[in-house]
């Protein structure tokens, strides 16, 4: 009788586990340097110089020149692997559009583009079932620099929550 009770208990636990997904976080996998709020706050449009910007934030991911194509390394979490890498090309106009309303853009203007990517994956495991979900989180910083004066004129920071 005792053994039967043990079997029943074991079977019950087994059946419970079948429908009980256990979330297991994987990663996060990161690319680039995190862009910290306190670093961004230090940037003062009209005062901060290009030199200071590079000292605080390092080399940008890309520098956009008007009417040119900007080549940007792409990093995303994917099925193929934790992170897949490549390059994509984008019209620089899209970056300059951020500043077009408040600035008269000239041939001397550049947009320094900083990016931090964190790809997170979570696996949910039940006995014979696995569900995986992943998300690529990107923080972007676009800084408008006047190369002639060497001064930062504006910036836009977008942090993905």
């Amino acid at each position: 009788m005792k053994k039967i009770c043990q079997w029943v208990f074991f079977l019950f636990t087994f059946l419970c586990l079948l429908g009980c997904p256990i979330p297991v976080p994987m990663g996060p996998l990161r690319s680039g340097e995190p862009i910290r709020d306190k670093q961004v706050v230090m940037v003062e449009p009209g005062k901060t110089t290009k030199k200071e910007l590079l000292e605080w934030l390092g080399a940008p991911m890309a520098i956009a020149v008007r009417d040119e194509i900007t080549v940007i390394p792409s990093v995303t979490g994917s099925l193929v692997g934790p992170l897949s890498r490549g390059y994509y090309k984008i019209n620089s106009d899209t970056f300059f559009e951020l500043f077009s309303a408040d600035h008269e853009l000239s041939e001397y203007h550049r947009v320094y583009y900083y990016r931090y990517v964190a790809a997170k994956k979570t696996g949910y495991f039940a006995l014979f079932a696995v569900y995986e979900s992943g998300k690529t989180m990107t923080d972007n910083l676009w800084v408008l620099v006047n190369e002639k004066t060497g001064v930062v004129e504006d910036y836009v920071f977008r942090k993905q929550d």
Partner: protein
Amino acid sequence: MVQIERQTISGMEQTLQHMAMKEKFLCSIFAFMLLCMSGCMVTGVEYIIDEPLNEARIAEIQRAETTKQEILTWFGPPVAIARQGTTMKIPPPGPTKEGYEEILSETFFELFSAKHEIIEGHIIYYYYYSVIKGSFAGIGLAGNSKQRLVVSKLWILINDTTGIVEDYLMRILE
């Protein structure tokens, strides 16, 4: 007296045999279940690749009211900007985004041409974000996997002279 004892012992033996049978039966059911399920695996995956377009924000877009600046604040810079008579270079949606596709801006303006008189000052902001959805079901050595890329696309028609959004369109393509 001896006969009664023999009867009791045989009764106990029968009960024990009965219990052993039951135990064997339960064991075989359990073993059969395990055999059925061994090598059986179901998986599902979902990867959000780009920054998702905020649906609440999309619902906030008001035709003839929302400004270009608001759109840029809500969604960031677009993937591409369509201007009449130009060719756009658009990175393809998906995990790698390698290279770019060259698309005539006219194809985007066509989306709004039925409802709007397209003028020189019109531009279109184009946004997208993609999600990979997949599943796998397998038993033993056989399996079936499915994978698809779901792309949500957003086109916003803006009058660049006034800086006002005139119309927008959203499509989810699988």
